[in-house]
């Protein structure tokens, strides 16, 4: 009987630990009215860099369009949403005028490969991998939302990409 209780106890403990771990593993999510922001992250910056790219997924669960029109990151002078396009081998970068529109039901992914990204300018200090940075986003209708960015590796392509970390030296 004693053993059974111990077993049960151990099981409950493991379950509790697993549950906590899964809660921690759940994507960082921030909401304001109909706007849902998932997994905001920023690339760590090389020394002397004055700009940084920010990435996340923004969804509009409401029935009206909204626009990302601004925000704050204390480490940067200001930021804008930019659109990057590859035209053959040439990279083109444009500021998204009037803010980034998110239509009802739309989910927009901001990532370093192509398409949209946040462009933080006038950096006051280098952004270091592993840090968490507090910031705010401002939407035309939903208003202001506090978010937190994870700082990932300099060349990271996604918030989970550990392959982008400097690898150990191999002997081939």
């Amino acid at each position, binding site marked *: 009987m004693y053993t059974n209780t111990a077993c049960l106890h151990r099981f409950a403990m493991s379950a509790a630990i697993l549950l906590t771990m899964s809660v921690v593993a759940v994507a960082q999510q921030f909401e304001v009215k109909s706007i849902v922001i998932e997994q905001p992250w920023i690339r760590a910056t090389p020394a002397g*860099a004055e700009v940084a790219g920010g990435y996340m997924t923004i969804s509009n669960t409401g029935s009206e369009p909204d626009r990302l029109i601004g925000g704050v990151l204390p480490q940067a002078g200001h930021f804008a949403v930019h659109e990057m396009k590859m035209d053959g081998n040439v990279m083109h970068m444009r500021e998204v005028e009037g803010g980034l529109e998110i239509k009802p039901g739309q989910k927009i992914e901001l990532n370093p490969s192509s398409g949209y990204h946040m462009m933080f300018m006038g950096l006051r200090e280098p952004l270091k991998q592993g840090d968490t940075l507090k910031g705010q986003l401002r939407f035309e209708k939903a208003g202001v939302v506090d978010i937190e960015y994870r700082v990932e590796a300099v060349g990271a392509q996604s918030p989970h990409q550990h392959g982008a970390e400097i690898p150990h030296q191999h002997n081939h």
Partner: protein
Amino acid sequence: MRKIRQNAVWIGATLVALILVGAVLFGSNYLRDDRALPKVAEIGGPFSLVDHHGKSVTDRDYLGKPTLVFFGFTHCPNVCPTTLFEITNQLKELGPDADRLNVLFITVDPERDTPQQLALYLSSFDPRITGLTGGPENILAAEKAYHVYAKKVPLEDGGYTMDHTATIAVMNSKGQYVDAMHYQAPSTAMRAKLHRLLNLKDS
């Protein structure tokens, strides 16, 4: 007695032959760079720039080793850090073999990318990457030589960003264009090209 002397001659001859074969194989490892990869296009040419240590350099300073040449700028959030980071990882993986390679990062934004700014920025990447800048005409001449498109794009806040070609030009040790590495091609493809360039066997 005669037999022993004959044996000694044979052993001696075999040793000499082995040494010769070894020397040829060893030597060819260093000479194969040029033979392996022929020129494929009239890309590249003379340039006269300043490296991130403030030293005046020309294209001739980089002859004798294969060279990767790519253009970018330090006020660049996506393409340039991605490429520099990728190259850093590749060079680390190559280890000492990467010493047989030049890597040149030429700025398309000489206005902001001074030698000091390039030195600071490149301190975050592999030290074997050289940053080059220069006067606007010198940069323009280098862009033209490498068929690189670069254009200033004004931003709302009064600042600017740059559109530019994101491809890496691969030059052989004679400064001839032999290959290209495209932006966001898989790391494995880049690794294979570097191995080919340096005559390394894929493991």
